[in-house]
């Protein structure tokens, strides 16, 4: 985990963006939590809650998770086992980590691209959630864009590791 700020402006920009995106994800989560809490209180006081509060919670969770992933990658907070590579030189380990970050970036591109297509299809079908009637497609497209940001961040961390700046 690197708490150190990136020396390069481009790296700093990406880190700043991931932080803001993670904040937004957290706020979406809090708002959905607020809606659910209000629904519970209304159900208790008036006998009926907010329709489709659980759907908002579901969508908010998906959005929040995808908003959190780039920040997690920027901090390189992914769980990894380093028990068996202690014999490698620090530089070797860095290059290895850079390679895996690059792989991560490639996979994130794949996920982003497929989710984008999937989301556009859902928009085409006009799919909405069951009770509250919220369109699903745009939310999926939003998660695709966030997966794209994840790919960009993984690329930045890979370059940072490979070029030896921490």
């Amino acid at each position, binding site marked *: 985990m690197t708490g150190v700020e990136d020396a390069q402006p481009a790296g700093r920009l990406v880190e700043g963006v991931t932080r803001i995106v993670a904040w937004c994800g957290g706020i979406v989560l*809090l708002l959905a939590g607020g809606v*659910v809490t209000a629904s519970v209180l209304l159900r208790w006081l008036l006998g009926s809650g907010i329709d489709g509060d659980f759907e908002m919670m579901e969508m908010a969770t998906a959005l929040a998770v995808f908003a959190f992933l780039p*920040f997690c990658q920027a901090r390189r*907070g992914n769980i990894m086992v380093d028990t068996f590579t202690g014999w490698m030189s620090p530089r070797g380990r860095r290059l290895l*980590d850079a390679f895996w970050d690059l792989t991560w970036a490639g996979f994130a591109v794949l996920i982003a691209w*497929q989710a984008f297509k999937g989301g556009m299809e859902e928009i085409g079908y006009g799919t909405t959630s069951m009770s509250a009637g919220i369109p699903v497609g745009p939310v999926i497209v939003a998660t695709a864009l966030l997966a794209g940001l994840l790919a960009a961040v993984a690329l930045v961390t890979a370059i940072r590791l490979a070029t030896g700046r921490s």
Partner: protein
Amino acid sequence: MSGLVLASAGFVALLLLIAVRVPVGLAMLLTGSAGYVALSGWPVFLNAIKTTPYYLFANYSLSVIPLFVLMGAFAEQSGLARDLFRAASGFVGHKRGGLAMAVIGACTVFGAICGSSVATAATFSRAALPEFRRFGYADSLATGTVAVGGTLGILIPPSIILIVYAITTEQNIVKLFAAALIPGLLAALFYCLTVAIRVRLRPELAPAHPPHSPAERRAALARVWPAVLIGLVVLGGIYGGVFTPTEGAAVGAIAMLLLTLVTRRLDLAGVMRCLLRTAETTGMIAAILLGAELFNSFLTLTQMPGMLARWIAESGLPPYGVLALILLTYIGLGAVMDELAMILLTLPVFFPVVAGLDFGLTAEQTAIWFGVLVLIVVGIGLSAPPIGLNVFVVSAIAEGVPIRDTYAGVLPFVLADLIRLVLVAAIPALALWPLALLR
């Protein structure tokens, strides 16, 4: 048969990737995708990942995780751990070994608010270690107690590990929370007994010190009761069926936020810090969940788990023997890998096997009891050498204490955990009895 070969190859490839520093989530993504493509071809795979990641996370049961993480982060950043520790040490701190027992007690209460063991261990390291030092406790007793106390974060519901177990095995979260309660409280009791025995055998570990005044005790209690009340309302509401676990977690997170804002324990910057902490923890869990989803789709395609379960059920092996073998495997795996990844990786294979065995319980009872047993071994894996995540966390915060000392301090507690594991395995009622009280 080719399914079996492919599944085994998948597991081997996965372990190899993990050994060469591939992040666990990515390793599962890579091997899972490769196997998926090999079995059903590119077009089916590409089609599957169009909406699979979205629907994996747009899941009502799963939303419990970030909400409980958020609630825990608010509690953590607001200094609740320190206040709980002060309140507890106000009552038992002056007894011999009392500070260690106070940490266990405070962790138990904190565990009812926070569902993560690492967060609990980190918070209490900062809150309690300086006090231990001030009163001249031995370092190994201090750090060992905090590392083990941290596991109470998951042993006492809410528990992220139990939620993941519930989602993976499609079991009822409320029932799992209820089943974990008595074993969780037993853990706290056993840890306190361990402390009592150790300081009796070696009094120099824990010097005695004068009791706190009644006024100090009242002041400490006054600071903690609102947060404790929130924890009780959330858990009580979930157990009582007043609201779903997700609703409980949402109410808990919002209430904890309001409490910290009203009592001015957190300002806006503090709240933002909590959001980022939630982002990091949740992102870490999500990456592994996504990998496990793909890896498990691949495993299901190979039909290996079902075959293995049938084979073991028909082989006439004694059920308790199989269970013992599985639990030993968990203790072994937990010693070298991350616990969350471990259960996500193994449950698709082990769960059908256990479900196919006859312990004289209903299918649901077996599933829930096994969940509690898995939780206990996860707790052991978090604190036992050579790789105990909690021990690392505590050692990173406790400057100047060699990690060897922390492990030495942890070992007697691990013994207590093993005894508890055998107890709950031998007497399923310890886990299952509270289920009868649920509505």
